[in-house]
């Protein structure tokens, strides 16, 4: 992603800085230090879950930094008519704002968008990450979760930001509680109660009229309703499974020399060391870490042993990102829950 043009001298300067002992970076960070990450959830009121994440953005004047806005929106899809999948599905898209890439043509922007969309979608849309509460009426209706991300500004390390923002938006997402509705024809049995109206609300498990021939409990529910219009719903299932991404940029002067991975590259560093390894990992509690996705981007090559080492060290860094992100998300939950409770108490 050549978002900034660098000269050969600059490239050489950055590379030797990274490979020197002690390593030197433009802002004085260590090789494995991230810039400050700011996260806020619930920023898009019309979406079911949303997050605004920025890496390296100045807190005072909101200047440069990598900013991503992610929103999760649930739409109902009719499985019977062929749209959607029974049990629900997730669709991810990424849009790159032209103000983030002011020197790219619109075609190049589309290509970049497509690359980012593919990486995000292939990871999150996989069946192993499918949340359990995305179905409404089995075989008839289900929720489709659209995860839309917008890259507002880019100053390096966009993939990490995208995955973190996507995870935060999914964490924040609330699925509205639904109740199935069954339609019953008015009974014509003599001596029964006065003629009932054409439709009735019935909970799925309770069948009011059992026919003698009804050996199988077939669900007759054909539609659903929201029992409480104002209720945001229950939390999306699978919080412990959503992965985080770490980008291990590879600083190397030549293919034979020493190879040093470093994290959270700014634009100039990305231009100087274009080879990088994306690792998408999750750490579900109580089981060993899962590697969801791995991509080697950029020109260059790595030995298998180097990749093995990178995966091992990448796991350590991803664990720190995971813990940090989870801590912040729980804090956000608390902040928003607390304010709501205060408002309710004061009403």
């Amino acid at each position, binding site marked *: 992603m050549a978002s900034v043009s660098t000269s050969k001298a600059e490239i050489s300067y950055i590379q030797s800085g990274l490979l020197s002992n002690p390593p030197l970076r433009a802002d004085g960070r260590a090789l494995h230090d991230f810039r400050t990450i700011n996260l806020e959830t619930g920023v*898009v*009121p*019309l*979406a079911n879950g*949303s997050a605004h994440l920025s890496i390296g953005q100045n807190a005072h*004047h*909101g*200047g*440069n*930094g990598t*900013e991503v*806005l992610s*929103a999760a*929106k649930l*739409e109902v899809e009719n499985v019977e008519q062929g749209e959607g999948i029974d049990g629900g599905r997730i669709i991810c*898209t990424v*849009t790159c*704002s*032209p*103000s*983030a890439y*002011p*020197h790219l*043509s*619109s075609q190049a922007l*589309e290509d970049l968008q497509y690359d980012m969309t593919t990486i995000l979608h292939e990871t999150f849309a996989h069946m192993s990450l499918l949340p359990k509460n995305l179905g409404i009426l089995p075989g008839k209706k289900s929720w489709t979760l*659209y995860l*839309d991300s*917008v890259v*507002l*500004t*880019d*100053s390096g390390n966009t993939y990490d930001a995208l995955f973190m923002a996507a995870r935060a938006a999914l964490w924040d997402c609330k699925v509205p509680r639904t109740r199935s509705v069954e339609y019953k024809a008015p009974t014509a049995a003599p001596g029964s109660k006065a003629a009932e109206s054409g439709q009735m609300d019935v909970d799925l498990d309770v069948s009011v009229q059992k026919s003698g021939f009804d050996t199988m409990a077939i669900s007759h529910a054909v539609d659903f309703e929201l029992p409480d*219009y104002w209720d945001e719903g229950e939390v999306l299932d699978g919080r412990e499974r959503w992965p985080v991404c770490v980008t291990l940029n590879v600083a190397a002067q030549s293919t034979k020399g020493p190879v040093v991975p470093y994290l959270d590259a700014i634009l100039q560093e990305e231009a100087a060391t274009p080879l990088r390894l994306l690792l998408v990992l999750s750490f579900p509690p109580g089981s060993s870490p899962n590697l969801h996705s791995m991509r080697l981007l950029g020109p260059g090559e790595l030995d298998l042993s180097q990749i093995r080492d990178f995966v091992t060290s990448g796991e350590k860094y991803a664990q720190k990102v995971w813990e940090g992100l989870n801590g912040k998300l729980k804090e956000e939950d608390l902040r928003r829950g607390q304010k709501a409770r205060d408002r309710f108490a004061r009403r």
Partner: protein
Amino acid sequence: MGSRVEVLNDGGFRSDGRRQYELRDMTVDLSQQGVADGSAVVTHGLTQVLVSVFGPREAKMRSQTMHDRANINVEVSVAAFSTGERRKRSRGDKRILEMAATIKSTFEPVVQTTLYPRSQIDIFVQVLQQDGGVLQACINATTLALVNAGIPLLDFVCAVTGGVLSTSPMLDLTLLEENDIPHLTVAVMPKTGKVTLVTMETRLHVDRFEEIFRLAGEAGKVIHAEMKAAVRERTGRLVGAMGSGPRPTGGDFEDDAMDGV
């Protein structure tokens, strides 16, 4: 949520509690966004638009440069989550292209392009939330972003929507109102009162047009006051931070520079 919501009830209140001629709450944020030369985030009630301006700079497409003036390029992008129903609009969508062309023709006579021959001014509009008055918010945000970027303009351009419910005119419509009543968008240059944009896509009786057109023009002046205050405050803070002038919190400082604008 079964009963029909009234656009204007008997007490003179609208569906969101406003009076007939009352404008929505407007906030302006002029802080820097990324590497843009100028940017602004404007909200009118629940409609939020972010505009970034780059330029004047070397044109990306040489074929579109003009020898005696700058080329203005407007790109609009609407976030898929901006509306109640999720709708992904591609960049080439006709409605979006039309909005971009409208914004461009609104600002062509206002930006002093003759000062920058053979260059390009890029205006990138990002619609973050929609609740009616999107074009109005885009134009107001574009004006502020251009001012923030330091690009010379003849005057501010202030836009507002107006509509007529049978015989009662109303200003600054929400989505609910826009779907119900005929409405128009008017953009004015407040110093001279000249109008740079009038657009209407619904049917309105010609007798009702004059009143709402005049009202919208006056509302533009009210919006201008808000925008001027926001620009003034930001400039005051920048000047204070640069150390070139007294701190803006000082009480005895009278700045006349912006009085005539």
